[in-house]
């Protein structure tokens, strides 16, 4: 490694669009965005359904969802590892240490956040809309898309929070991905490894990119919320 200020080298890596750096950032985005997309596709209607329908065990489902929001990434990683390891029930699929395994683990992490938020937001909205929608002839099932659409701005904020969580976690992707160079190495695992190996410039460069990304996500969430309040009431 070249001597000199690690900050300066880090900036140079970013400005020169270092291929190793770009590869890692690209894989990070690909894994986390896919996980968030799947979690949103499943979690939004799931949360809305829990909000609208009464069924035995509903209280437990709600409490469980809320508890799972705090699921530690390493535990999520461990669960998926056990599932996908050679001896595990899905071992024959050969997914362990692939980006797919990382997507599964992150989906597991993000799904409860999105579903719990969707449940809360849709339940509040249903309280406000119920009589009007029933008067107009809407069934509960038909109300789900209506309510999700009307809650879209709150929900986007939650989905972005889910993306923040996915892209910033280390534990799950490390366990199921293995941090294999060029295959499953993402920003967070690379930062952990390069720091411990003493390659501070790359770690710093990745840290800066990650920080910018997370700030961008939060700023977007904030702006969407403000915009919605002003334009749609």
């Amino acid at each position: 490694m070249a001597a000199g200020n690690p900050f300066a080298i880090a900036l140079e890596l970013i400005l020169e669009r270092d291929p190793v750096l770009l590869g890692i950032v690209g894989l990070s985005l690909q894994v986390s965005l896919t996980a968030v997309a799947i979690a949103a596709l499943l979690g939004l209607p799931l949360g809305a359904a829990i909000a609208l329908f009464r069924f035995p065990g509903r209280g437990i489902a709600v409490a469980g969802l809320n508890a799972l929001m705090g699921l530690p990434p390493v535990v999520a990683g461990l669960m998926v590892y056990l599932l996908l390891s050679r001896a595990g029930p899905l071992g024959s699929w050969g997914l362990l240490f692939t980006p797919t395994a990382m997507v599964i683990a992150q989906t597991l992490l993000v799904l409860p956040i999105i579903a719990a938020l969707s449940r809360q937001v849709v339940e509040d909205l249903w309280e406000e809309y119920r009589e009007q929608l029933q008067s107009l002839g809407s069934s509960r099932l038909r109300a789900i898309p209506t309510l999700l659409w009307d809650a879209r701005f709150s929900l986007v904020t939650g989905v972005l929070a889910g993306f923040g969580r996915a892209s910033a976690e280390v534990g799950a992707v490390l366990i199921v991905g293995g941090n294999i160079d060029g295959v499953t190495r993402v920003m967070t695992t690379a930062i952990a490894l390069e720091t411990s190996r003493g390659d501070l410039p790359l770690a710093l460069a990745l840290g800066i990119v990650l920080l910018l990304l997370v700030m961008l996500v939060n700023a977007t969430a904030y702006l969407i919320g403000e915009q919605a309040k002003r334009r749609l009431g």
Partner: protein
Amino acid sequence: MNDLSRPDALLPLRVSALGFRHRGQSLLDGVEFTLGPVGRTILLGPNGAGKSLLMRLCHGLLTPTSGRIDWSLGGASVAFLRRRQAMVFQRPVLLRRGALANVRHALSLQGVGRAEGKRRAEDALERFGLSPLARRPARVLSGGEQQRLALARAWALRPEILFLDEPTSALDPAATKSVEDAVLDFHRAGTRVVMSTHDLGQARRLADDVLFLCGGRLLEQTPATTFFEQPQSPEAAAFLRGDLVW
């Protein structure tokens, strides 16, 4: 709209021995009346008399704990019956989308096809002077415009009966006037109107007959002129003098 010769007409509506209890408390008790196929019925009574409750029961939003609500066509499901009615609430709930889209959404809930729905929604906005606001987000409209949009939405559904629950209580005089005009439009188009209000002037302007509720009981069903000149019950007389607390 109402056509008396229709074999499957919704009206008359017969309400018999209707009661509604909540947590052991009787909120409506022994309510009996019949609504014929034409006219404007105004529901009057002090605050908490059960006016809103009665309309929500008739509209099928609540289930009575005793008694019956019989529409002329028997045996139909609540959902089916409700499709032929509409209700305008004190504070309309509008969706977070454009004015036109709100009306189209209501039509699509009732299974009206896209092209037909668009045409009917545009007609309804036009009739209530809302065409220039068609793309405006419904939630940023003024209170009066929102209520007109709720009326336009009800209009597009072509209900046989329209319930209005104190539709003008939050509105200024100009907006109130436009709601009263709309009620007349519905009436002329043959829609049965049932409306509650706490504005006696408005009741006099609009009523063909009056249902007077007090403390969860129906004390009068009287033609409007009789009600305002010679109320049959002492409670109604006190109410008209302004001696009953709202």
